[in-house]
């Protein structure tokens, strides 16, 4: 039982790491997509932008895929309930996501300006929309989503598409978009050179300021939102399902964890520090440092959401007692043990070879060489 409890908490942390990795790595590429048409004024400049992330976007995208896979494996009930409940939003996410690989691979393969313009727009939409949805999904988790279960654990979502795009969720979506633009801007500042770099720098500064404002507004808003409290449930280390607990809604409850554990304030503080220092680093043209500070900002922001919700993952606003918590939506001990073993071996390996790939392709993108490279984007 102790082991199971430990594994559950461990996988809650792993889930957090995956969501952060996804936001940092895919978010950066999406930021570049969003900025493409604004920092690249002609075709050559846009190709420079695309080639800056060209060798890496595919690998980075795996964070997204792994995020989905890990939720399926470690939190199957979240996977089942959230993805079917947020159906239309998920479709928008998928439809925009699947345009990206084609945008990268096909855009520069034909010389036609119409063709390339169309893909530029596709990359813009498929960069901005998924990031807004990503943030909006977190916003919805904070507020709770209307769903309930049958006796056999069949889930029913009773809200509408529009209710998922409520004002608070949109605010979270914009925060997420700002951070992604920041990361994309910082990456281009470092690797694009030429006329692109100063424009990217300007965009990154604007995005950092927007993120600071949005994070502050979101923080104030959250303190007025109701939160969820688990009143009665099987012990955390026991196998259980969401029908076996009692939960209720409490005003200001999203700050309850912070009140009882003041040390947790360090998490949003990390978010702020990342954004503010990142802004300074961008001003000082320190793109690598600014990138790492941006990563820190993401960790702080996602950590803030996780700490506010704990132990809830997906609260139900219509049937609070049937909320999905870390304790009742996690996989069995055997599955978690195996998953832990694989993660322990492969995560360091992935980090190692990803770093190697970035190291091999380091340095500024060579605008002239792109013209002669058939394989370049």
């Amino acid at each position, binding site marked *: 039982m102790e082991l199971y409890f430990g594994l559950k908490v461990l996988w809650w942390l792993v889930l957090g790491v995956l969501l952060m990795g996804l936001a940092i790595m895919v978010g950066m590429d999406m930021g570049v997509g969003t900025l493409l048409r604004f920092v690249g004024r002609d075709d050559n400049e846009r190709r420079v932008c695309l*080639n800056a992330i060209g*060798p890496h976007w*595919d*690998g980075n995208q*795996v964070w997204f*895929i*792994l995020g*989905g*896979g*890990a939720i*399926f*494996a470690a939190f*199957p*009930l979240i*996977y*089942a309930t959230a*993805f*079917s409940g947020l*159906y239309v939003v*998920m*479709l928008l996410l998928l*439809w925009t*996501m*699947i345009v990206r*690989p*084609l945008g990268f*691979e*096909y855009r520069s*393969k*034909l010389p036609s300006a119409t063709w390339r313009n169309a893909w530029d727009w596709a990359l813009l939409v498929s960069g901005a929309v998924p990031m807004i949805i990503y943030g909006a999904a977190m916003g919805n988790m904070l507020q709770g989503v209307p769903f309930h279960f049958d*006796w*056999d654990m*069949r*889930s029913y979502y009773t809200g509408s598409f529009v209710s998922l795009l409520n004002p608070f969720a949109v605010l979270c979506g914009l925060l997420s978009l700002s951070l992604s633009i920041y990361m994309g801007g910082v990456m281009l500042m470092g690797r694009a*050179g*030429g006329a692109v770099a100063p424009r990217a720098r300007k965009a990154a500064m604007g995005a950092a300021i927007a993120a600071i404002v949005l994070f502050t507004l979101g923080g104030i808003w959250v303190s007025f939102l109701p939160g969820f409290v688990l009143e009665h449930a099987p012990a955390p280390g026991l*196998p*259980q*399902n969401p*029908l*076996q607990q009692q939960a209720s809604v409490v005003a200001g409850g999203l700050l309850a964890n912070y009140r009882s554990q003041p040390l947790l304030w360090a998490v949003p503080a990390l978010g702020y520090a990342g954004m503010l220092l990142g802004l300074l680093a961008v001003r000082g043209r320190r793109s690598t440092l600014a990138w790492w500070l941006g990563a820190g900002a993401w960790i702080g922001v996602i950590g803030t959401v996780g700490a506010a919700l704990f132990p809830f993952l997906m609260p139900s606003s219509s049937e609070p007692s049937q909320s999905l918590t870390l304790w009742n939506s996690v*996989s069995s001990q*055997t*599955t978690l043990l195996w998953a832990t073993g*694989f993660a322990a071996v492969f*995560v360091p390996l*992935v980090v190692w070879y*990803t770093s190697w*790939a970035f190291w*091999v*392709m380091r*340095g*500024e993108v*060579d605008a*002239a*060489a792109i013209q*002669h*490279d*058939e*394989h370049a984007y």
Partner: protein
Amino acid sequence: MIDSTVVELSRWQFAVTALYHYLFVPLTLGLSFFIAAVETVYVTTGKAIYREMAEFWAKLFVVNMALGIATGLTMEFEFGTNWSFYSGFVGDIFGAPLAIEGLMAFFMESTFVGLMIFGWKRLSKVQHLLVTYLVAFGTNLSALWILIANSFMQDPAGAKFNPVTMRMELDSFSSLIFSHDAQAKFVHTSIAGYVTAAIFVTGISAYYMYRNRHMAMARRSFRMAALFGVLATAGVITLGDALGFVGGQAQPSKLAAMEAMWQTEPAPAAFNVIAWPSQEQKRNLFEVQVPYVLTPLLTHTMTQEIPGVDWIEADAAKRIANGIPAVAALKVLSKDPTNADALAQFNSHQQDLGYGFLVKRYAPDQDVEKATPADIQKAAGDAVPNVFAMFWSFRVMVGLGLAMLAYFVLAVIFSVRNDVENRKWFLRLAPWMIPIPFIANEFGWLTAEIGRQPWTVYGLLPTWMSASSHSVGYMVFSLIGFVTLYTVFIVIEMTLMVKFIRKGPSSHGHGDHAPPRPALGGRAAAVAMMRKED
């Protein structure tokens, strides 16, 4: 109760997206290894033509792979969006291989494909070769984990129902990954990918040879791919036989449908070469049989009896009757997981839990305990997949497989005699062979998946229960969305492919003539170097 239209639309959506995704996967599996083989020759012999070949095929590889990745993304999330009951019910087991696939295989493939494309000038020859091999191993490892997951649906080994969490849970990881179905299917499927790539390469090379273009590359590519193909086709057929063998042990209903065997016959049973099966009349309206052949073909013995549809239905009826108390006990346990009587009842009937679910859709008020013998009989009839679809999709796959074997035998003979170029009829035929492996792959998928019906997880979870509880409107909306997007995608992809094939390897202007790209240099260095070349 979910609407049966929603279930049907969910099935259509899954079939459309999976079949579409599966147009791109096999070529990726095979072409990656073909490119690695070509590059190996380049590294060992140092001949520039092989580098040009590797780069040319890599270009087509990437165009194809982009859609494989894009459509694969849909697949991963579709379980959650459209099959949410399924996901919650078996996610504990099914999710693990999917996550491991991402972590172990897809990361590798995707990270290194970037270096494979962009790293020519930044990596040493050997480093680049290693990267190419890592891409090939990554794609194939991906297939391995996905097929392990799929095999769990075919032959659910290593899982156990937990009445406290109300779901299937992993019991033995080794039974999951070493299931016979998974092993046979992985080898069969990945080698089918090699066949696909071999036909693709020989077809395009033949097109060049017919027009007397890019002869140096076309000749070499053709020869390598023909050899690759003849071995692979022989492998696919052998492994297909093994897959039929293990599949038959695990899924007798699939086998009965595949062979249109309505009645259990005394061994050795006759083999239906062709037949016109009728599900309503439970017989073949027309059949051409070869006596004694089926039993040795499927069981590799002369005496083992092969169950026909009659046996499958009778067995299902028995198991439904036995499964009803399991479902009833489960309902009690969901409110009171400690109820000892219900637990005992569940334990003694749980091996037929899935069959209990099977009758739920016909039982009054969906209460299995109210099911009449007529309801049970109806549900038992469901236990047999669509015989006509099975019989013919299997035969299309096998027939095309044999045709490809004949093609490759000829290709190798002509290649060895060094007179392919003179056989104009063969060169004209070869490009028309390109669609064949794609069609065979699709029919292979249909055989595997239609044959598993009415189950999503064989014997455990009926398909009609697995879907999400959406409205029909949502499903129509999403189906139209996918079909529209995918249609646009395939038009774009085919246009690019055809364009690049027409252009041929000369389309990439660099090869050995391009200005070398400075390792770290900026624009100035490259410009300077270009001037020097001029």
